[in-house]
């Protein structure tokens, strides 16, 4: 359990966009995909997944349709929209810049200060 990390505030949306950018997924699938990519190092509150999905859909970044799941049940599949694709791109760039800056600050040596 201790190797799992709590998700940083505001990053869940980005991860969902990334997850569905690889192909249509139902809610549970999004969860599995993120855990799989992160090699089980990220814990996602299952209860907070769906509000995030609905919010993203309301904002028009993902869209949904009902389909059949691998176990032959009706499930709602989410896919990325064009707007969502752009959003993911800008969010990813922003995140990378921010990560660089933070890494730079944390990696600073005392002599250089």
């Amino acid at each position, binding site marked *: 359990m201790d190797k799992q990390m709590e998700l940083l505030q505001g990053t869940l949306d980005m991860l969902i966009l990334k997850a569905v950018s690889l192909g249509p997924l*139902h*809610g*549970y699938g999004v*969860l599995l995909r993120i855990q799989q990519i992160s090699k089980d190092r990220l814990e996602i*509150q*299952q*209860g*907070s997944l*769906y*509000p*995030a999905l*609905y*919010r993203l*859909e*309301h904002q028009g970044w993902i869209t949904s349709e009902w389909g059949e*799941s691998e*176990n032959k*049940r*009706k*499930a*709602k599949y989410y896919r990325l929209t064009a707007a969502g694709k752009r959003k993911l791109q800008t969010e990813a760039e922003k995140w990378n810049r921010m990560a660089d800056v933070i890494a730079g600050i944390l990696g600073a040596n005392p002599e250089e200060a």
Partner: protein
Amino acid sequence: MESEMDAELHFHIETLAQDLVRQGVSSEEAFRRARLEFGALEQAKAECREARGVNFLDELLQDLRYGWRVLRKAPAFALVAVLTLALGIGANTAIFSVVNAVLLRPLAVSDPVRLVYLQEEWRDMFPGFAVGNFAEVKKQNASFADLCASHNGGFNLETQDVPERVDGEYVTSSYFSTFGLRPIAGRVFTPDEDQPGHPRVALVSERLWRTRLRADLSIVGRQIRINGVPTTIVGVMPKSFDPLLSNTALWIPAAFTPAEIVDFDNHYLNVVGRLRPGISLTQAQSELRVIAERLAVEHPIDNKDRGFQARSLTTALLGDQRLSLRMILAAVGFLLLIVCANIANLQLARARTRQKEIALRAALGASPNRIVRQLLAENVVLGLAGGVVGVLFAYWAVDWIVAHGPAEMPRLDQSRLDASTLVFASAIALLSSFLFGLAPAVRSGSAKLSEVFKSASVAVAGSRDRFRSFLVVAEVALALVLMACAGLLIRSALFVSHVDPGFDTSNVIVGRVGLAGPDYRDPAVGRQTFERMIAAAAALPGVESAAVVSRAPLAGLGNSNGLLAEGAAFDPSNLVDARLQIVSPSYLSTARLQLKLGRDFTPQDTRERVLVTIINETLARAMWPGENPIGKRFACCESGPKGRLDPVWHEVVGVVGDVRAWGLDHDVKPEFYIPIAQMPPSAWDWIGRTMDLEVRTRASAAPVRELQSMVASIAPAVPIYHLSTMQQKISGTLERSHFDTYLLALFAGSALLLSSLGVYGVLSYMVAQRTRDIGIRIALGASRAQIIKDVLAFGMSLAGIGLVLGVSGALAATRLLASLLYGVRPADIITFLSVSLILLAVALIASYLPARRATRVDPIVALRYE
């Protein structure tokens, strides 16, 4: 949407559980863990809804359902609120239906905005047009695309066994094109038919065609006898075509004779013009001024100082109705405001007891916005319920108004609840929901949670009590304005009922007889026929005496003439305008007019003798102030053999007391009487060959049937109509003001009741809130009288402030009533004092009940409360 969300979340949990089972967990345990891992399902759903940006309509419906539940849990409050609201909305809707029918609905003619009503203007009087002036204006003007003239007439119709009298109009052939409507069958008049000597033709109204002519289309082209003349029906005009609102059943060509075309002396035509496109009313008025000046030069005797006045047709026809309808509309508006204030007050009181419920909702996460919305929705439910009941109430009220409203109010019978009144009702229902719901809602929404829980049962929110007091003050003020207006109208009605009509109105029965038709063209034949009727009527059992008069008192209208006193220079400015009455010698004694000076007419006053006249006191004062008029002479009504300026003198032989001929609440005008045997020949046509037969009976029983058969036996095919007792005619003229008074008194009474409920509510609530304070004071030795005094003082101070505001409002409002009042000034002290006293007395009672309850507070119980 909701079920999709459910399905999706359950899919998630089940799939998760299946995965767990695959990992070797028992299925029961797997489900338990899956649920646990997922977290609170309901909360997730709520968050999802929020995230989705829930449909506004969904939430509104939810709020409305919630409001409905809340109201069902408070049935007493809901009932009182819905009923008072229904009263307010119903009264407003009913009155609006009437205003809509009478004032707002456009006239049933094409493009009524461009129609203009023309009158002559002479010495602040507005008589009809003389035919000569109409012909000249029609010839000379460039402002009107069409100009038509008409005058009213009565027609004896012989379509059934009993001859019938209907109202109709003589019209020029341009009449129908001016109003722009086509007949539903047949055609309108040709200009040829509008020439003298052409065989008689007529157009009939849809109503006459339906009720008297069996709605038979083949009637077009056939003949019926109208006024004894065979008349060809050429067309049927559409339903509701009655452009001058004169209850017209048929139209006959005016067919002015060459002599009439140059007559500038008889002013009786209704003239209506349709403005040319691009011409404004002001432009038309200035052109009319130029024409009037030219005509004044060409015809100085008749047209000196005579102008033409042009008004929009709608104003001319409906202007009189505006004041009283607006007054009543304002009154119901006030009533609705009072109702709203009352419900707002009740809601504020409930808001206090519901504070904890609301605080709890807030604590559970409802946003202030949502709470305000919910409270508003509750009020909307209340408003809509009130609206529905109110519309039912209005439905009944409109029927009542149409049945009992003043008969002379045009188009009143067209009042009904239709789409526009229903829209109006819904609009005011919603508006009032917001009015009475917003204040409590906003206050509740902004209430601080901590404060609510802290305050427990101790009254803290002083500001809210101030607001409730303010509402009560406003209610009292509005009620006082209504009461003052109603009070003035009531006092005015009392004054009118004590006015001396100037003659003995008991046991008098009057009916009109029109001797139309070629048989009676000769005035002598007409006079002889009437004399035979008088003799026959006087011989009926129970009849004391009988007489004819051209217009019996209170019959309205009549003819007026300019009189020139002997010795005054012949100049139009020396003319005294007086109303002509042609009477049989028995009239003064039958009507019991008071002969003040001189003698009565006798059968010997004939054309061969000296022409005599009897004048009323007002005319005597106007013509010969301070002198004895007996033996003096004036010229009028006809000209001698030497032409228009050759005077024909009438010698005054008597003076009679004034008669309130126009209605008890109207001023007396100068009047003069001429015996029928000396009637100027042209006067036979002035009076439309129609006279009132007036019969005085010994007992109050009216010999209606006997009079009808007597008239029919003497003049076949001639009906006697408008047959009623003088007392009925008097109440008929007062119908209108009584109607206004009754309605306003009703609204004022309701307003008084509602505002006293307001006072009662606020004080009861205050006493309930201060139980502890009062208990302490009693425990400390305050006397019950002291407690009563304090509560009463608060109640009376609310009423007092409302009273002062109301009186100042009423002083402004009643000034607008001035023209509806008789014998009372708008600022009548007695009225203001009495309504103030009534209001204070009622407020005192409303305050006393809670005050007495305050003295019953048991200090022990009150203190244990905490």
